[in-house]
């Protein structure tokens, strides 16, 4: 596809491709609602030019689980009360996914620090942190059992 030179990655994904899961909350990289993985690394797509992403693999919230299924983190966010209005949720899930990939057994403080680039106004982060810790614990349990 061809994109305007000045278009942000967020704009292209939302308006040209039509995947609106990633949100625009601040347009200056403060809130993290637009976070995507670019070749596995998190970027605030509101502040990233689409042309810079040429040839890269991009993961948005829509791509966290195949088909109609939910990834363990998505499920855990719901059970733990990590979702209220849901506007920060897509970016938060992207951030948490990357966190657990790089650090499958984090401490609570590490989770809080790693997620501090994603603002949530509803939940006080409590359900979000609990969800991440829950998935980490289940993963650890599973690998201990293997």
């Amino acid at each position, binding site marked *: 596809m061809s994109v305007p030179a000045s278009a942000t990655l967020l704009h292209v994904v*939302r*308006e040209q491709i039509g*995947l*609106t*899961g*990633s*949100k*625009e*909350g*601040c*347009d*200056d990289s*403060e*809130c993290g*609602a637009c976070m995507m993985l670019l070749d596995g690394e998190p970027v605030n797509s509101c502040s990233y030019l689409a042309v810079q992403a040429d040839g890269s693999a991009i993961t*948005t*919230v*829509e791509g*966290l*689980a195949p088909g109609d299924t*939910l990834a363990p983190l*998505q*499920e855990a*966010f*719901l*059970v733990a*009360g990590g*979702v*209220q*209005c*849901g*506007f*920060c*949720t*897509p970016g938060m*899930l992207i951030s948490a996914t990357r966190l657990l990939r790089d650090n499958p057994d984090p401490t609570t*403080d590490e*989770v*809080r*620090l790693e*997620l*501090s*680039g*994603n*603002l*949530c*106004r*509803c*939940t*006080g*982060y*409590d*359900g*979000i*942190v609990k969800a991440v810790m829950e998935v980490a614990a289940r993963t650890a349990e599973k690998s201990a059992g293997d």
Partner: protein
Amino acid sequence: MTIADSQPFIRPDGKEKVTGAGRYTADLNLTGQLYAKFRYADHSHARILSIDTAPAAALPGVFAVLTWRDVPAVLYGGYVQDRRLFAKEKVRWEGDVVAAVAARTPEIAAEAAGLIEIQYEVLPAQIDFEANAAAEAPLIHEQWAEYEADESVGLAGNILGHSSVVKGDADAAMAKAAIVVKSRYVADASQGAPIEPRAISAEWHGDKVTIWSSTQVPFAARSGVAHALDIAESQVRIIVPLLGGGFGSKCDFHFEAHIAALARATQRPVKLVFSRREEFLAPDHRREGMIIELETGTDPAGRLLARRGRLVLDKGAYCGEGGFFAQMAAMHACGPYKIDTINIDSYLNYSNSQPSGSVRAPTAPQACWALEQHMDEVATAVGIDPVELRRLNIIEEGDVGPTGQIFEAIGAKETLTAALEMIGYGQELPDDEAIGVACGWWPSFGSASGAYVKLNSDGSGTIITGAMESGTGAVMGLPLLAAQTLGMKPEDFSILYQDTDAGPWDMGSSGSQTTFNNGRAVIAAATEVRSKLLDMAAEELEAHRDDLVLAEGAVRVKGSPESHVTIAHLAGTGEPILGKGSGVVPDSPEVDASTCVGRLGLESFLAPQLMTQAVRVKIDRATGVVQVLEVAAAHDSGVIVNKIGADGQVYGGVLMGIGQALTEATVFDEEGRQRNPDLLHYKLQTASDAPEIQIRWIEIDTPNAGPNGSKGVGEPPSVPTPGAVGNAVAKLVGRHVDRLPMTAERVWNTLDAARAGTP
């Protein structure tokens, strides 16, 4: 029904929210749509001499440029009708809308808005809201005497509202008091700051406009559009897609009529999406700045004999729905305490800054922050522990409130005991840590509210409600109540909501009122369905109605479980099964408030919620940086209907309260312009700032309240937090920080002054 802790409740809108499939207003695009942009006032206070839209209209791609000339000459506002859609004679704050453009792209719209030529006579910006009450201060609204206004508000010049709480002879009691303490506190303005900036799309179908809006109050938006465009309410349909938070800031009628007017002028759908900067600057909605002067007299043991107070609140440029703030603040300057005599005056003054409007528990966190620090000062003067002062004076069942309200069963004292126990009050702490405690209260709001419950032919149910889901989960919890009434499962119900053409009128996501009022309506509607099912089953089973029960999706004959008929069978007969209900709105408690002025209905607190929060904080004395380590929140919100939802309100509300305590302030320059309209300089709390929060619900089955003895839940969690933090900080600093937020700089300055012994 209370959901057991072990039973997970998954919100019905959850899956679409975690997959990104859910649509918020800005996610919608309509074929052929144009993009809107506003031209805001270039000054905070100026007379408009001329507006020339021709240069903007001439730009290719521009379809319409509207000003006051293009809309009905209508004033609007909640208690005082003082605002127009487009400024005409004057601009009164930097966010006043002078013109609106619709163009083919957002970029063209923005360029065109900048091309509109406006000539002004610039006037001094009057941002000192206390000084604006002076007789010699120039009027911000010269025509105030001609405005339509609620007579009880007390509009007079630059004073929009005046309320008082007067009980007994406070002057005489103060003169006789053994101990008298005076304090003055000042709170800055702050913001609701939802993560979703607002968005609106409008499209006309013949003479009817459909508006998709990120509002918390679709029915208020509908009446606002009808009033401002001089059309019938039946010509306006408001649909709210998923709402990305509001916290009060998306209450009231805002920009829906501007976009509807653009769509009508262009005969095209028009879309508006705010930037974060606009979300800070343009809504007539932020938490009000406040000056709080308090004086309390006690007997030698610390019993409260007299309270005098003077409050001044910054209303900003226009009234909106915030006309009740003076009275609400006055009630919070009394607090949940037994006080023999009271004399509090509270003023709501115009200024040339952003209008204030409801943000989560409007006026309460600031007033409570001041009062609770003042209470600690009183305790020090009496020579007792601050907790003892509260234990001695906090309201209990049978006590008389500031306006003569006699309290029914309430758990105020129990919240105090529970919070202290959870935090380990009295424990030994390092010398850079301290525990602070604050109590607070907040009313439940009784309001008309309605719902329909219908059964579908497959035996599932649909709740059709006017209630609004801002994220709290209040609407998502309604199926619990319907399921309980009908012996069905919550997941058997879908919800049709946030469409003014579908559900009955509702006050919206404001006043923590959804479960309180709409919960009752859903139960009433489900009860009608139940009655219909019992009639049908009695005939089908040839049994007496009184011998039937509804359980596990079927109507059963008591004592013979094999004799039953499923709800799915009855619903599948083709007979429509529809119930409607509103329930009975509880009356406001009786008061004796003939001595008070500015009465707008808040002189009594229906089903009052009581709470105590205790916080443990740590200070870095070298920098003044304060960190909240732990919060214990004990709340009486009556019986809890949905625990995960209620807990979520406390976690989020407390963190919002910590933000207000330490970092969140909207700073205005001397021209009335916001200096920090972005999330870099307006600091929300992050995950790493958030402390451990323990919650305990004091569940008192409350008479005269919401369903199952419940009260409101959503607003109170923010109320006592800044005060509790302030009291903890004061123990570490040696005196109280008298300015909110208690930023590192202010804490350090207070510490420095305390060390130097300067006032």
